[in-house]
């Protein structure tokens, strides 16, 4: 059975374009899925490796996206100023280009609720797209 599985896996890999690790978001503040009771002033992101941030936007309750200033140089640790936030649900969308020239993107969703219960949220490193 093990040999058959190995053969099956090897056959599965035929005609494949193999992939290697890409830049991904290791952690952020606010974290994805978190609830904060104080309006955050900055968005802090830690990437798996230095990457050039090419797009950074924030939107509230599915509304229009507002562009945020991104650093000019590649960085592994991003700190971007946020506008004054009103209570609501926010989605922060990021795009980066790594050393391998691949464009990676992802979203971080958080809720600002001054009367809510703070929730740390969870960092799912796979919630990003190539």
């Amino acid at each position, binding site marked *: 059975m093990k040999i058959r599985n190995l053969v099956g896996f090897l056959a599965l*890999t035929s005609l494949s374009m193999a992939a290697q690790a890409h830049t991904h978001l290791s952690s952020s503040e606010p974290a994805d899925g978190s609830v904060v009771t104080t309006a955050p002033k900055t968005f802090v992101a830690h990437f798996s490796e230095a990457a050039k941030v090419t797009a950074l*936007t924030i939107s509230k309750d599915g509304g229009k996206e507002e562009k945020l200033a991104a650093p000019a140089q590649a960085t592994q640790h991003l700190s971007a100023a946020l506008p004054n936030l009103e209570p609501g649900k926010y989605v922060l969308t990021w795009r980066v280009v790594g050393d391998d020239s691949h464009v990676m993107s992802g979203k971080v969703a958080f809720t600002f609720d001054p009367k809510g219960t703070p929730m740390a949220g969870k960092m799912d490193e796979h919630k990003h797209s190539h």
Partner: protein
Amino acid sequence: MNIDALAAAVRAASFIVMLQAVGAAAFLTLFAHQLRASGAATRRLARNASLLALLLVALHYSLEAARMGGELASISDADLQGMALRSPLALAAGLRILGLALIAWATRPTALSRRPAALGILAVLCAFLFVGHTANHPSALWLRPLLVIHVGVAAFWFGSLIPLILVLRREPSVRASAVLDAFSASAVWLVPALFIAGVVLLAVLTELNPNVLSLPYGKILAFKLGAFIVLLGFAALNRNRLAPKLRLGYAAASRSLIQSVSCEIVLLVAIIAATGVLTALYSPE
């Protein structure tokens, strides 16, 4: 508009047409001396495919800035276009465009120029040395050539199928049989080379992590596996059942071969398109 989906679609289309152009040019380089009635049509195929591929490659490259910015409007962003220009993507696009232009010129209506065609094929394939997931790997020195072998054989296989149909339709059965036998003789060792190169690449870059199979990446690979197995079935049918009948002069053999090769084309288009989308949108992580 989902810019990632648009870029992936253009990438997939560029892969299909580019491999068609390269494969048809390779077919002509090897077998043009055996072609009479189908030669001009095959040159036209290679030329038209290379010109269309050239446009698609240019479009795909220009969309990189849009992907960086996350919206189509970013295609006119000078800073992002500058980033793309300074990346290996520009070199790869340049090589592909140069190679396809050479193929288009080499397959012009008046004559076939083998050496420029071969140089054009080489330029297109060499573009894969500079981009993709193998380019930045610590073992890139030997992984890159494997990728070129993998893509090159795929291009020859796929790009030769329409020319084979043209041969079956237009050439006398004796000549068609000879061309088919010559192609089949090369495929016997080329297809295993494609398979082995692909296996080694994926084994090294994914470290044979079985968890890959549960990801979108793995699911697309599973589809490609299924299509590849069916593809091998058609190839075996052609080689072992239909080609011998063509050789013996059976009237219906040509028609059956055309149908079988057409099925191979459909499967390979699906595999190549899946590869384009796979490498644009997903990773095994």
